[in-house]
């Protein structure tokens, strides 16, 4: 048996470079220049894609120029649409967080700084493709044209809430927009997206699926299930990992990102793993389009790591100043996806400050109107929701006997309460 002298072992606990009090420091972070990563054919062999998880696909350079083989060469109107959707998403977030602060609802989650994720990916997919998002891709719904008032009604659990007041705010479910019911349980939707994609392939359909999880969520079993099933059955699905550096108060090193990239997970399943500048609208669009074309060609699933930064608090219940430097976002080297696309549009003479402020104005107006309408249907508890009996519906397709009895009990109790 081995007889070498042995050092005492030590337990390693990953720590982020900076905590509150210190200034943000991204000096260690190597950000490769835009345009440098080759764009393989969608039918390239897996062994020729193994470099991708260690690169960073970028199209927009620091001056806002689109460079390199990944430039999707989108018509200016589509770029302006993207800008509009991202601005609308941000304005919506601002207004709704205010509502939460004013006690009009119990909970809210912003995607500030990550707007390119939902918006660019929705635009790179077809309207009929099925989306299995986490709670931070509201940009998908905005880009697909879902009326904000629908989302607001859900957030307020008001009389027009399509989820009948049953769900936590922002846990949208929008079948008509190909947007799956958001689960409060992290990660569960990812292998479901794979199952949906398998069903589409089983049925000889042409629609593909896409699923999203955050960096922290990659540690859950469901992500491993999704990768395994997607690989084994060559499912037409795009699995996006939104690496926004944080999982509530835990930095991505706690999820395994200290030495590995999340895109590298793909290699263990012989899937392409694209690592992409998540704040670069064009890069996100191009990578998603590449993966979609691959899936549509029966070449199977792809993993996309979108490298971005969670500019906002985790949620309305969270205060990041307790665990990270206040100036991190300001110093985040990949900037703001909205500013970068705006700069690009201006640099190609398809946009200017005047039109921009007009647009911002118009969108603020629009959100205000939608909010007015939503509020007219009520906000959380005001008026109190008036159909408590509906609480017993949809547990099963037909209400079982015991729930019929329980509903009667509950309604009797309510009546009694009103009498007193």
């Amino acid at each position, binding site marked *: 048996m081995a007889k070498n002298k042995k050092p005492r072992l030590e337990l390693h606990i990953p720590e982020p470079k900076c905590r509150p009090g210190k200034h943000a420091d991204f000096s260690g972070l190597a950000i490769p220049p835009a345009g440098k990563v080759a764009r393989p054919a969608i039918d390239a062999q897996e062994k020729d894609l193994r470099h991708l998880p260690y690169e960073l696909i970028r199209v927009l350079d620091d001056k806002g120029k689109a460079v390199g083989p990944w430039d999707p060469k989108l018509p200016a109107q589509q770029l302006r649409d993207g800008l509009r959707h991202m601005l609308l998403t941000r304005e919506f977030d601002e207004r709704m967080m205010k509502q939460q602060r004013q006690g009009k609802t119990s909970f809210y989650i912003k995607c500030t700084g990550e707007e390119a994720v939902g918006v660019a990916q929705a635009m790179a997919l077809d309207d009929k493709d099925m989306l299995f998002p986490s709670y931070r891709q509201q940009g998908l719904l905005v880009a697909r044209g879902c009326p904000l008032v629908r989302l607001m009604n859900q957030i307020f659990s008001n009389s027009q809430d399509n989820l009948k007041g049953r769900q936590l705010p922002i846990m949208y479910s929008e079948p008509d927009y190909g947007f799956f019911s958001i689960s409060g349980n992290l990660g569960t939707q990812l292998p479901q997206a794979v199952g949906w994609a398998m069903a589409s392939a*089983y*049925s000889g359909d042409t629609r593909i699926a896409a699923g999203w999880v955050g960096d922290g969520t990659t540690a859950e079993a469901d992500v491993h299930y999704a990768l395994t099933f997607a690989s084994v059955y060559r499912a037409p699905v795009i699995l996006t990992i939104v690496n926004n550096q944080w999982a509530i108060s835990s930095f991505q090193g706690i999820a395994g990102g200290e030495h590995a990239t999340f895109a590298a997970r793909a290699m263990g399943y012989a899937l392409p793993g694209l690592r992409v500048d998540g704040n670069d609208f064009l890069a996100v669009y191009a990578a998603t389009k590449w993966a979609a074309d691959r899936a549509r060609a029966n070449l199977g699933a792809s993993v996309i790591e979108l490298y971005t930064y969670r500019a906002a608090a985790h949620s309305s219940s969270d205060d990041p100043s307790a665990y990270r430097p206040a100036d991190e976002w300001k110093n985040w080297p990949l900037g703001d996806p909205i500013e970068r696309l705006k700069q690009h549009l201006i640099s190609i003479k398809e946009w200017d400050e005047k039109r921009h402020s007009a647009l911002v104005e118009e969108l603020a107006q629009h959100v205000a109107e939608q909010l007015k309408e939503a509020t007219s249907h009520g906000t959380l508890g005001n008026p109190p929701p008036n159909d408590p009996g509906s609480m017993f519906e*949809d*547990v099963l397709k037909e209400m079982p006997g015991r729930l019929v009895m329980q509903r009667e009990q509950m309604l009797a109790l309510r009546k009694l309460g009103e009498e007193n």
Partner: protein
Amino acid sequence: MARMNMIQAINSAMDVAMARDPKVLTFGEDVGYFGGVFRCTAGLQKKYGATRCFDTPIAEGGIVAAAIGMGVYGLRPVVEIQFSDYIYPAVDQLVSEAARLRYRSAGGFTAPITLRTPSGGGIFGGQTHSQSPEAIFTHVCGLTTVIPSNPYDAKGLLLASIEDDDPVIFFEPKRIYNGPFDGHHDRPLTPWSKHELSEVPEEYYTLPLGKARIARAGETVTVIAYGTMVHVCLAAAEETGVDAEVIDLRSLLPLDLDTLVESVKKTGRCVVVHEATKTCGYGAELVSLVQEHCFYNLEAPIERVTGWDTPYPHAYEWDYFPGPRRVGLALKKVLES
């Protein structure tokens, strides 16, 4: 009509379902080419092709998750969990997702999936091939739980489960796959072919979920059981000569409460029997409901005869398994008190 054992009846149900509806497919560990470790899917891959009957990675959670996604798409997947002892990795997808999806999406999305899984002991399978975890799922609203006790019911209930628009967990008591085992491990097993309920139509038929079966009509005590225990209870009634009314629940949820209440109101006495561990087993719910609805008719405390509150001990299988003698003593006890 043909003579079938439970395995053949289940296989026939799958065959009929897949022939009738192209949206029905089945998958799980070793279910494809091999046809399942208990052979319940034998021949299906050959007949319907690999995309409708296939092997899966060993990931129970992934199997159920994929099935949910397929259900959302509009298919009717039937998945097999090789032993119910291995269902735990799938609990999150079953409890947090399958059971809640219709509710949280207000009917916008549903998971019409069926999960088949062999359960129960009596096969010297030790603690990881003998469990009866049904009570973990009967506590979860949104799940339907079915447990057949014979080939005829197995086929009719499985077809009904597959057609059900919500998730169904279909437990298959593996000890009675080949015959109506009554707990007498020291006697040769009578094959199903000698039992009337092995007369199974080859064609399509369903049995309603939530309708119990009176396995034996009786006057003096009501015995509530399901799965393997139905046969144990029938043997106990024979051997003690107690005129027990033995009720086979068939499905735990939905529960046929009316049949139970009617019987107990008649007999005034009740014994609840299952193989799962006692504490917080499904028997506790049955006792609670019976005392709630028949309090003034009860002449003796309701007895529970169950597996002991320990893991399933390999060498002591027959000291653990609730056999006819234990049930018989309980029958006498409720009659004497």
